[in-house]
């Protein structure tokens, strides 16, 4: 028990360190690229003087000493408050109004987490049996087919999967909607937009699931392939281990050998990989969100980076908020995986986990 606690304490410390490092790196990158936040204060397209630019930056608080801004950000974060964004800042009667980040950020987190968690579950559910079938008889027809499919899956860009699934199941066959995210809870139609009286905004569990099926499969396709390859290798390795031979010698049936001796061992590796792939998964989510018109974290961060296309300036508070949330997801996800690992593996804890090598092919999405 004590070992687990100290192990977790070290992991949490490491996570906080990672969070700090990512936020600091973002600050450094932003400052090194000479931003012009003052541009956001004036209507886009009008010509502004250098004085106005500086004045705008001052009103947004971007001319304060850099260390003050940095400290201020952490102070806000400790209060679970992401502050206000630059986009949509308006100057009226010498008073600057800016929109808070929260109302845009929280729905985006929800959409991304829906894709990530659902897609991950789908990937694991499909890849474990496929990997087990392929790994049990290396070189059989089933193995060859599955390996070929996995190779193609690893080499397909998620945007292509997304585009083709959209085209076939959305546009050609009309089986599934492709028009973005539907909320799980049904909301009333917004008033005052002049919508027809019988207009029903999409929402509710059924619409929610339908809107997510294609994104889940798109997301899962890549990871499915990676995990199938890994489970296949793991299963084929452990079939030669002593404990499998012992189980067979004791007369255990093949099914029991797989379920009780081979697959649990493979699951440890799957768990390790899931922890390492959370960052990758968020990168893949960019393309899933793009394909299906979702407005999740990835989309939000890329919009914040490019700013409004007409300004081409970075909405720094928004970017920082999204980056922090992404780093938090990575850190917390890793923590959960580590805890699960400590629980699942009886040798637990302080020992470094095996197989911490990442498949390069998918590592850099």
């Amino acid at each position, binding site marked *: 028990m004590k070992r687990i606690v100290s192990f977790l304490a070290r992991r949490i410390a490491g996570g906080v360190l990672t969070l700090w*490092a990512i936020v600091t790196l973002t600050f450094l990158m932003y400052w090194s690229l000479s931003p012009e936040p003052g541009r956001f204060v004036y209507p886009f397209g009008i010509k502004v003087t250098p004085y106005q630019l500086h004045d705008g930056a001052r009103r947004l608080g971007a001319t304060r000493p850099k260390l003050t801004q940095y400290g201020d950000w952490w102070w806000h974060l400790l209060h679970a408050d992401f502050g206000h964004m630059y986009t949509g800042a308006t100057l009226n009667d010498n008073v600057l109004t800016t929109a808070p980040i929260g109302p845009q950020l929280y729905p985006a987190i929800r959409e991304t987490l829906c894709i990530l968690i659902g897609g991950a579950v789908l990937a694991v559910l499909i890849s474990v049996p496929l990997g087990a079938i392929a790994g049990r008889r290396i070189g059989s027809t089933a193995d060859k087919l599955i390996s070929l499919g996995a190779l193609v899956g690893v080499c397909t*860009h998620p945007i292509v999967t997304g585009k*083709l699934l959209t085209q076939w199941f959305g546009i050609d066959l009309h089986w599934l909607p*492709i028009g973005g995210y539907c909320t799980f809870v049904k909301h009333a139609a917004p008033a005052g937009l002049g919508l027809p009286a019988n207009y029903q905004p999409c929402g509710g569990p059924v619409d929610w699931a339908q809107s997510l099926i294609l994104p889940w499969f798109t997301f899962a396709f890549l990871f499915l392939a990676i995990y199938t390859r890994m489970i296949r290798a793991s299963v084929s390795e452990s079939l030669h281990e002593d404990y499998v031979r012992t189980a067979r010698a004791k007369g255990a049936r093949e099914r029991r050998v797989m379920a009780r001796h081979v697959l649990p061992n493979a699951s440890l590796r799957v768990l390790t990989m899931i922890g390492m792939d959370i*960052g990758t998964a968020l*990168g893949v989510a960019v393309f899933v969100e793009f394909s299906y*018109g979702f407005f999740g974290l990835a989309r939000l961060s890329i919009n914040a980076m490019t700013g409004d296309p007409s300004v081409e300036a970075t909405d720094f508070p928004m970017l920082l908020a999204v*980056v922090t949330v992404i780093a938090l997801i990575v850190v917390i996800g890793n923590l959960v995986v580590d805890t699960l690992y400590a629980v699942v593996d009886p040798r637990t804890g302080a020992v470094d986990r095996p197989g911490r090598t*990442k498949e*390069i092919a998918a590592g850099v999405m």
Partner: protein
Amino acid sequence: MTAVELDAPRAAPRNAWRLTLGRFLSDRAAVASLVAFAFVLFASFAGGPIVSALVGHDGFQQFPYATHANLDPVGVWTRVPSTAQVRLDDYGNVLPPPKGSRTTLMVLGADGPLGRDEFIRVLDGGKASIEVGVFAVLISALIAVPLGCIAGFYGGVADAVISRLTEWVMAFPLIFFLVYATIHLTPVLRPIGWGHDIPAGVPMVALLIGVFTCFYPLRLVRAQLLTLRNAEFVDSARMVGSSGFRIIRKDLLPHLVPTLLVWGAVAVATDMLLEVGLSVIGVGVQASTATWGTLLAQTTGTIYNAGLGASDSAHHTTWHTIWPTVCILISVVSLNQLSESLRRAIEPWRRG
């Protein structure tokens, strides 16, 4: 006399590389992937000029008659009038071209409302994509090998700093770093290029991808050197007075070559996929330059031109997605298999 004759065939010295080559060539998948990638290379670098010479136009020319009246491009294997001028009547309607005007062949049809040759653009796109992949791998190897050697061989503070930095960067989705850096460096770096051979934008994308992916080979090199630095041959080199730099250069670098080869083959593939990602987001190579990424981006739409039936992407068919996809698939699959086979040939004792 007979003894000499019997010994003769056995006496030929066989070094490790030749053995590896033999193992590689006797592997069917290895040869197949090598042939496939060689074909892709040939098609991308020589295919564009050859096809241009055969059909008499290049991938930049726009043919107004290569689109239908609603701007949908013509289909596979179509002859279109080879005029750059479109004839309009007094009301602005498009008239058929004059009788007897010369035609030119579009093998895969036109690429969209602009009416360029899709086939030549796919071939030329391969050139740019492969260049991005190869240059990016070279750049990241150039960064990774010295840093990895310092971290792995000397250890200490340098190792701690480099390893931590690697861990932090790798915990975070790479595409965000890439997009952020690309957006801000585009005005400075994108014009760099060298005619049609290295299209403008390719060096920028390759540089950025190379810099941000250098952490993978860095870890590989570091891990390799960590295991090697206490080997006996390193000790003996030290004993005869070699400096650390000389040991790395003369004794350790040759050991890195197999690892880097195996990594390099996969990394070219990955970097090509990254280029696709950047182009689809809309920040990579300029959209008018053909790469497999920009060809796909035309059909999916970018952040500046949101997909799903919006303006430009409406005039593309599924085929316009499939051509570059198939090309990417062939090259990436063959590179992956090449790397796998190389690993098997270099380390035959490791199964799987």
